[in-house]
C-alpha cells in the first residue's frame, strides 16, 4: 500500500533553533514593543536607517523651503543648483547606500543569531524517477 502522506517535513523543525522557534511564536508582535532579542536588535537597525532615510529624502526639500537662497544659489559641479542636484542625484544615491548598509547589518544579525540561509535547500527529493514524488 502506498500512503497518502502530504509533504509534512519529517524533519520537522531542526534542532538548531527548535527551542527558539517556540519562543518566537509566543511573543506578541508590536512594532513599538519588540519582545524578543532578535526583534529588538532588528528594530534598532530599522529605526536608525529609517531616520537617516527621512533625513536624506525630505531634508533637502525642507532645507530649500527654509533657506531658499542658500539652496538655490549655491551651485555644484559647474552649475547644478544645490537643491536640484540633491534631489536629482544625491537622494537616490543616499537611499541606495542606506540599503546596502541595511543589508549588511542584517547579514551581521544573521551571523549573530546563528542563522544560515545556505542549508535551506533540502534536496530530499533527488529521485524523481517513475513516481515523480510520492505524495
Amino acid at each position: 500500500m502506498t500512503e497518502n502522506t502530504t509533504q509534512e517535513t519529517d524533519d520537522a523543525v531542526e534542532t538548531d533553533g527548535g527551542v527558539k522557534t517556540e519562543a518566537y511564536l509566543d511573543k506578541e508582535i508590536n512594532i513599538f514593543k519588540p519582545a524578543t532579542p532578535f526583534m529588538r536588535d532588528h528594530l534598532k537597525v530599522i529605526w536608525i536607517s529609517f531616520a537617516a532615510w527621512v533625513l536624506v529624502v525630505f531634508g533637502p526639500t525642507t532645507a530649500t523651503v527654509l533657506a531658499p537662497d542658500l539652496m538655490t544659489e549655491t551651485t555644484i559641479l559647474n552649475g547644478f543648483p544645490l537643491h536640484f542636484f540633491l534631489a536629482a542625484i544625491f537622494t537616490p544615491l543616499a537611499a541606495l547606500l542606506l540599503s546596502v548598509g541595511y543589508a549588511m547589518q542584517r547579514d551581521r544579525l544573521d551571523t549573530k543569531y546563528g542563522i544560515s540561509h545556505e542549508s535551506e535547500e533540502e534536496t530530499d527529493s533527488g529521485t524523481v524517477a517513475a513516481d515523480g514524488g510520492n505524495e
Partner: protein
Amino acid sequence: MYDTILVPTDGSDTAEYAVEHAVDLAEKYDADIHALYVLDTSAIDVSLGTEQVDRIQQGQFEDMPELQQRANDATGAVASRAETHDIDVTEAVVAGQPHKQINSYATDNDVDLIVMGSAGRSGVRRALLGSVAERTLRSTQIPVLVVDRQD
C-alpha cells in the same frame, strides 16, 4: 492485458466518474493504478502569474502549499478509492501542458491503458475550453478509455 492503468485527474467531479471504471478494470486485470495530476502551466500563468510558473520550473514546488494541496487532494481521491479494493497506487504530480504530460508519463511508465474523464462539452464551450481527453486521445498510441461525465 493491462498491468498498469493511468488515471489522470484534475480533481473535478468529471474525473471522479472515470475512477470507478479504472478501479473496476484494475481489479479484474490485477493491475496497478497510477494517479496523475498535471499542473496546467498555461492556467497557472494567468491565474497566479508567470513568475509562479517559473518557480515551479525551478523546482520550488515545495514552497507552494496551495498548489500541492490541490494536487494531493486530487490524486488522493483516486488512491483512497483504489485502496479499498486492494489495488497498488502510485500518485504523481507533474507540470506542463496536460495532454503532453499525460502522454509522456504514460510512455515513461509503461502504461497499458489510460482512463480519464471528459466533460463531454460540445459546440462553443468545447471550442473555448477544449478537451484534454480529446487531445490526449489524439496524441498517444496507448489505448484510452474516455468516460463521459454523467449529468
